[in-house]
């Protein structure tokens, strides 16, 4: 019922993407379509270009060749004003939160609101409080500086900042890396819940098989300089050795087992009680 529902076709569409670092080819003729309101996990071996792909989609890097369309707009053809408008429509969570260290958590979250909206100071403050609660941070964290927070709290604060403009797409770079298993499970749950209530499209780079099983609708595997997109079941039908190893290796099987047990209601976890 919302403007963002009017989007027809994929929200991100990549065609013929090539990336090279000198003689080293990272992506070659890579195609990828991501539909709105999906949670897509990007996986791949070290050096397969996951972070590079993400950085290219959000315009922090330019590909050597190819076309990247976000919301149906070709990002390579955009002028500065077009980029500014586009950047307001997505949020980005960096690996360690990338909070501005000289600002408190509340000020960090307020930065995009101050820059990109005409809301009054009081409403901005109210919205910051809501985002802090949405990201699952305790209210006392609002006036702390990033250096006073734990890694998990920094990620939540980074997430709150990424959500401050109510983006349509949320990009996450290894959201659960460096968190303990309980913290990671809570973070997964939080992202799933935000995705459902706010109608987000979530694109996350992850090495965490539990996250893939728990919240991802689709998985994009970067392999052989291309990408293979599908649900985990689809991917399991691929003959590729790396994919088989990835999902059917000891860790993959363990994560799949847990996911199945949770789905069947055999395991009660405390994931559900995070609001």
């Amino acid at each position: 019922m919302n403007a963002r529902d009017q989007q027809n076709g994929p929200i991100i569409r990549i065609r013929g993407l090539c990336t090279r670092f000198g003689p080293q080819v990272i992506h070659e003729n890579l195609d990828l379509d991501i539909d709105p309101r999906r949670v897509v996990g990007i996986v791949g071996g070290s050096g397969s270009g996951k972070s590079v792909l993400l950085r290219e989609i959000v315009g922090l890097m330019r590909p050597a060749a190819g076309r990247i369309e976000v919301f149906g707009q070709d990002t390579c053809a955009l002028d500065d004003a077009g980029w500014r408008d586009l950047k307001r429509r997505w949020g980005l969570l960096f690996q360690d939160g990338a909070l501005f260290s000289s600002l408190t958590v509340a000020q960090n979250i307020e930065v995009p609101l101050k820059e990109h909206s005409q809301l009054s100071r009081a409403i901005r403050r109210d919205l910051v409080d809501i985002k802090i609660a949405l990201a699952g941070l305790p209210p006392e964290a609002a006036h702390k500086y990033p250096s006073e927070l734990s890694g998990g709290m920094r990620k939540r604060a980074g997430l709150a900042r990424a959500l401050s403009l109510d983006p349509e797409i949320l990009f996450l770079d290894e959201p659960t890396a460096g968190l303990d298993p309980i913290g990671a499970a809570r973070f997964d749950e939080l992202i799933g819940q935000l995705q459902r209530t706010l109608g987000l499209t979530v694109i996350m780079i992850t090495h965490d098989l539990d996250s893939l099983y728990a919240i991802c609708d689709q998985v994009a595997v970067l392999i052989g300089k291309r990408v293979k997109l599908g649900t985990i079941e689809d991917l399991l039908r691929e003959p590729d050795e790396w994919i088989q190893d990835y999902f059917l290796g000891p860790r993959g099987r363990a994560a799949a087992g847990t996911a199945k047990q949770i789905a069947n209601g055999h395991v009660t976890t405390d994931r559900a009680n995070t609001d």
Partner: protein
Amino acid sequence: MAMSQTTGDDTPWVEARQEADTLAFALGGAWVTQRIGKQAAALDTAPLPGARRVSLDIAAVAAMDTAGAWLVYKTIKQFRAQGLEVELVGAGKATAGLIETVAKSDIPCPPQPEPENPLIAILLRVGASTVFICREGRDLTNFLGHTVSVLFRLAVKPWRLRWTAWFSHMEQSGLNAMPIVGLISFLIGVVLAYQGADQLARFGAQIFTVNLVAVGVLREMGILLTAIMVAGRSGSAFTAQIGTMTVNEEVDAMRAIGLDPMEVLVAPRVLALIVVMPLLTFYADIMGLLGGAVMATAVLDISFVRFTRQLSEAVTMWSFWVGILKAPIFGFIIGLVGCYEGLKVSRSAESVGQQTTRAVVEAVFLVIVIDAMFSIMFSYLKI
């Protein structure tokens, strides 16, 4: 509720109307973070006396995000708190869900702590800085002792010194500094000669420009300028290098492996500056005199031969040694402060910058203080 963001004007709007005992709001347009502006104030319309009910009609709202949902929720909350009956009309399933989410997240954060009374704040800052400077002095003295003891240990066991690192730092802070130190000294020689000649010409004593340049450059200018350049170039680099290593936990890793950072990081750097500073000063002296000589020949009609003859009369060997003797001490201090501030970096990128600035300021300050003390000492010794 079905309106596209691209077609038509979707600026958010509010209409407030009171009929009998009902205050009716109608909302429309896109109630999203980036569109809402002054309209929000209209939601604060106070009900006229006699109102018992409030109705909020959001059927015409084209798009809503958490900002819009918060405003709607806040309005409902405020009127309920005034004892009015509030009804929300025309909310779709998604919008209702969003408003519910916002309601659940309505956990106000504590207000920002009030800033101190300015007078007390000034007193606090003065006190804190005083304590800080005293502590810094104590810690730096402590570090000085530590470094000296490590250097003595290395003198007894020279094979423990990191020779490669030592030579590499000598190259970086000595050899690579030559162009800039040379250029600056040359220019200062030119400036001294020019300004001196201007004044001395009034007494017809132009030839004494040579004395001015020679004594000035050899005793003070050569060494001071070199020290300031090295503090800015190498002292800051030491802090940044060691500081970044501290941030990356490399220094902790060294300690864990059983390497002494004092031996591995501090000693080669400090020793490099002790060796390099006299050499650079010697070079700066020559370039400064050369600058003076060039100026004298070009503008003042003092030929190069006359310049050198006057030079040998003007200065004794001691003028030269006064400058050179200070060099290793200044080098030691610059290296010491650079390394000390680098090891004091806490685990944040911001602190690397802070400590680097502090290292340069402290090194230059100490160099000038000690230079003043040397001047007093030399004047007692009548050198």
